[in-house]
């Protein structure tokens, strides 16, 4: 009987570990997926990036680079938020 319980507990633990691994992978993927979306946007609409044709552009037009903002948001999330979250998920093991 106790062997059955131990086996069940072991299975539950394995299941929980697998769930946490999936969560860690998802969290790690958010940043790169966002960066990829920004890069695809640059390829689809290169005219939205005035840095590619900066001549004659004013200050605000050179500052406003929406596809780069998307890449930057993904990068900051990947470098600042994701590592701690993955660490905390693993510590929960």
């Amino acid at each position, binding site marked *: 009987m106790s062997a059955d319980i131990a086996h069940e507990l072991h299975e539950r633990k394995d299941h929980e570990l697998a769930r946490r691994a999936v969560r860690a992978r998802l969290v790690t993927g958010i940043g790169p997926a966002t960066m990829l979306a920004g890069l695809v946007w640059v390829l689809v609409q290169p005219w939205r990036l005035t840095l590619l044709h900066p001549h004659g552009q004013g200050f605000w037009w050179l500052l406003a680079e*929406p596809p780069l*903002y998307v890449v930057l948001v993904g990068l900051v999330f990947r470098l600042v938020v994701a590592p701690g979250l993955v660490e905390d998920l693993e510590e929960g093991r």
Partner: protein
Amino acid sequence: MIVAGIEPRAEMVHWWFATGILVLALLAFAETIVGPEVWGARPWRRYLWPGMLFLLGILMWPVMALYTNSMIHMVAHGSWAQALMVAGGAELGVARGKLHSQYWRLTSAGALLVSGAAFLVHEQNGWLFGRAAFLHHALGWTLLVASVFPFAQAIRPRSIVAASGFATTLVVIAVLLYCDRDSAAIFGHFSQFAGVMHR
């Protein structure tokens, strides 16, 4: 009235707010994935989402002051700023542990409702006047309908569907805001009164 060459164009302001909303969306997705216990394991992380929301509310004030095309614009932007600050402030109170009720999440539902109404009220043109008009209508109705998600979160705080719906709504809002152009066509339609068209 925008002072030519000094103030950024309205479309740029939309893109900057889109970036703030995108940050909110990524944080909301991450919290949904890892769960509130892991998310709250580091105190600074609890303040990210409400802090960003509160900051967006503060940044709406210069928009109200500098982009006052009409009385209705000023009222819309002003009430919008207040709603975002109330929601951000309430969520900050919850994160700090000063506020305890799960129903404080209703302030986020209120923020979406006020934001949606503000979009719809201050857009005076029809859907197909131009891209900006279309997006204002689309954003307004999206926000109004999506307010059901934070409302559901207030009732069932651990609902994955409500949390995912809220995070997805934020992504949709960011995408729509990034699509905004001051004078561009929408589905081949562009009013002769909408200025000089660009892509």
